[in-house]
């Protein structure tokens, strides 16, 4: 657990960050909370000769809650998300999910930007961002650009972000209706065996809108449009939930690990999604 030698940078503005990235290309990495990158460096699984710490870069730690959208800076920690009353009111699913990430010590350091940008399929925020239809804000040598969260993830640790770009924040449309984030894990601090995020809108007794996303059941987070289709327009009865689960199972592709074999993960994914839908629906 001793990293290889590296140079440490702590630039004061984004311009300086980008110039270091431009100079060193993929030999440089930006670090937000460092709770994924530093362990990888200590295990010598990540070779980062130039480490750029973002904590002195201004304007990355704001939470702005507007009437129809919420903007969260990349350096906002999970603890910040949990503690922000306005955010909890506008998007309670964020707090519910953040409370299930790792443990309090990690949440004081771990950031939403690092969580979504790292591309680790085990992270919870990427799945949640699928559910909330977030937009990720990137900045690079050619200026700023936005990418839909649902288009961002390509494979494990592979994203649409270029090596010379920095993810600066996320914007989500203010979520509507009932919500739930359910996560099964082996112990505190663990990645999900299976997790599901659901937002759902009820009009009378009919579902008029739904969003369904799954975590750690493929090499990317999964937004299941077919599961959504199975729910919208129904009364979210047993048949609709079964159809949604079946649709979701077609979309995920879990692999065996110490959490268990594929059959178990598929089964648990279905159970967790059912519970998530039922709880979200009960809150809708």
């Amino acid at each position: 657990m001793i990293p290889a030698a590296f140079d440490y940078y702590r630039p004061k503005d984004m311009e300086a960050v980008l110039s270091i990235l431009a100079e060193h290309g993929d030999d440089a990495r930006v670090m937000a909370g460092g709770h994924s990158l530093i362990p990888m460096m200590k295990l010598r699984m990540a070779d980062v000769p130039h480490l750029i710490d973002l904590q002195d870069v201004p304007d990355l730690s704001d939470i702005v809650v507007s009437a129809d959208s919420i903007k969260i800076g990349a350096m906002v920690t999970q603890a910040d998300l949990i503690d922000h009353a306005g955010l909890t009111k506008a998007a309670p699913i964020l707090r519910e999910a953040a409370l299930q990430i790792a443990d309090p010590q990690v949440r004081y350091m771990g950031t939403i930007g690092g969580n979504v940008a790292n591309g680790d399929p085990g992270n919870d925020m990427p799945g949640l961002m699928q559910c909330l239809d977030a937009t990720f804000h990137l900045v690079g040598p050619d200026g700023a650009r936005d990418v839909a969260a649902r288009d961002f993830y390509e494979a494990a640790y592979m994203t649409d972000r270029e090596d010379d770009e920095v993810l600066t924040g996320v914007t989500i449309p203010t979520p509507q209706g009932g919500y739930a984030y359910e996560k099964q894990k082996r112990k505190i601090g663990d990645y999900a065996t299976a997790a599901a995020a659901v937002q759902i809108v009820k009009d009378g007794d009919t579902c008029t809108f739904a969003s369904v996303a799954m975590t750690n059941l493929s090499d990317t987070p999964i937004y299941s449009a077919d599961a959504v289709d199975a729910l919208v327009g129904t009364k979210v009865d047993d048949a609709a939930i079964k159809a949604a689960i079946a649709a979701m199972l077609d979309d995920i592709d879990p692999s065996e690990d110490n959490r268990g074999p594929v059959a178990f993960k598929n089964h648990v994914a279905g159970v967790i999604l059912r519970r998530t839908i039922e709880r979200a629906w009960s809150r809708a």
Partner: protein
Amino acid sequence: MKDEISREERVDNLKGMGCSRKRVEDARFTQGKGNYVDDVKLDGMLFGDFVRSPYAHANIKSINTEAALKVPGVLAVLTAADLEPLGLHWMPTLAGDKQMVLADGKVLFQGQEVAYVVAEDRYAAADGIEAVEVEYEELQVLVNPFEALKSDVILRPDTVDENGKAVDGAHGPRNHPNHIFTWEAGDKDPTEEVIANADVVAEEEMYYHRTHPCPLETCGCVASMDKVNGKLTLWGTFQAPHAIRTIVSLISGIEEHNIRVISPDIGGGFGNKVGAYPGYVCSVVASIVTGKPVKWIEDRMDNLMTTAFARDYWMKGKISATPEGKITGLHCHVTADHGGFDACADPTKFPAGFMNICTGSYDIPTAYLAVDGVYTNKAPGGVSYRCSFRVTEAVYFIERMIEVLAIKLDMDAAELRRINFIKKEQFPYKAALGWEYDSGDYHTAWDKALKAVDYDGLRAEQAQRVEDFKAGKTRKLMGVGLSFFTEIVGAGPVKNCDILGLGMFDSCEIRIHPTGSAIARLGTISQGQGHATTFAQILATEIGLSADSITIEEGDTDTAPYGLGTYGSRSTPVAGAATAMAGRKIRAKAQMIAAYLLEVHDNDVEFDVDRFVVKGAPERFKTMKEIAFAAYNQAIPGIEPGLEAVSYYDPPNMTYPFGAYVCVMDIDVDTGVTEIRRFYALDDCGTRINPMVIEGQVHGGLTEALAVALGQEIAYDDMGNVKTGTLMDFFLPTAWEVPNYETDYTVTPSPHHPIGAKGVGESPHVGGVPCFSNAVQDAFRAFGNTHTNMPHDHWRIWKTANELGLHD
């Protein structure tokens, strides 16, 4: 002189046995002022670390250290070739086998030490490791002991003759090159005959998976050879510092008086820090070569992957009974996976430890046990992990066999235990596999436990739950886990317990200071057990000085008397006894001094809390403080000045703590998630020295039991890769996963121990594992389950439910 305070207050002031004295260690631990081995920092200190094998079984074709030696800060790279001229490329293990210090031509497990890089700092050492080039030739990997016993692949060519035939080992004949020993206890033929003719026989095969003690502090040392005075000082995480000193002397040739071994504060041991590791040997050699202190500290992966593991027992049992449930015979065969070297930490005559306590708490007239040890491509070790030498395995085995027999008999498992318990009047009880249990009152403990949890109510609730489940009203099953365990601790009588020939006595040396305070030194070493607190309490009661006035010191072989260290719950049974006996020597001399001062005959004074009083005249007394001052400063005819004593205690027998545990668990059959609703633990550890410390020990041991039963394992894939080498996958419970524990007790003192104490550190682990496991298994009993192997993590529980058709 008028007595100022009441006798009751004098007792309170003493803080002796039976009081929940706060731990004196905690002031420094809770303020970050502990002094652990990694806190030892010496001028010019170097750092050593290992190149480790990525393969589980491979020949080493070549090792090229050139590039590593060019890394700035790297001073030396040691390989087996460098150690061979010193005869240190192999070292003896505690089990009578030998182990490579550095890979000698081949590697036998993933993570094995291949080369030792010495550098000016840890970073340079890590860079040096990366630069060492090792060429491996992969060999067929054997991770299953049954396959190893059939394989043509010879893991240890050093243990066969020129024809490839296994030569006899430390524990007798070997029947295959990968076979280490066969060890037997009890009577084979009569047992088999009883079982063959029995009305009822239950059989089961169970695998007690490999796990690891995982102390929070990993292993490490600092070796410092002073070339001027020829003295070697070795700080380290040693559970047995004197034994380490003797071993270092024997293998290095340095005379024992020139070796000082110091165990500073130790952050948990649980058996992991009993043995000798290559890191110690290499650090000593590196310090001798460089003339500078050398530090070696494991990281978490090193610790989990290479230092002493626990369990890995494949157990096959048969238990016979009458139709009414009276047990008539027990047969057990174990295939024991010892890894690449037999480095088990067991008394020499017990290569399978005290597995022959596997008749448990029951009056079983006929029994037989055979254990076959096997080499595989896994890490060596086989330590106790909070149990005295395989007692966890033994108790798990019998407590599972009882449950399996209850299923066969269609009987309540609590009742089956009750009708087979050894009765109070049968003690001392000679068990069929050889041990003589010192004392016990199992029925009283069992009745108290079952009453405390409303056992009948639990079974009624469980039956209703099964009905509700079948009716589709719930997806959660309820398990009631029972265990009744008998421990065997306090190794041990020198007549049958030694490690590498070192008798397993222990010791205490007491010096009373003139002003009536004291220092006591012991051959043991606390790793969190709170010895500085509890041993002072024993002494306070024995010698009448307040525990607050008594310093307890352990762990420095230059000052402490020789002892075999702390593991296997032996400190209180053995060193605690030595402490009491040494205290009694102090008291005997104090009595003579008191009598002289009071101008009466020796027999006319008697000890009372903190003083000697004249019999029949309690107003005439001398306090122990007064006596201490007189001992040094008053010329007393016929009595030497001073007040000191030493005792070396060779226990006449082991001690046999016991307990009754009940766990109530809910299980979600769809996800495999368990929820422990209640855990009740009744422990009988004989005389209770400090109830608060006992409770802490029980909480800790139960938590480690929960870990082992519900998910903690060292798992290997077919290629011998460790799949659980970090705390992400190796389950170490936190406050989040741990339920509330209810603790309770009965007191059945040990008849042969000076204060009647039996030891408690391991009991909750030994009894806890089967209790948690039985709760899981019991939840599925109504659906046809007889046995499933641990660890009961989510997916394995889910698999059980799935195989029982509960997901259909």
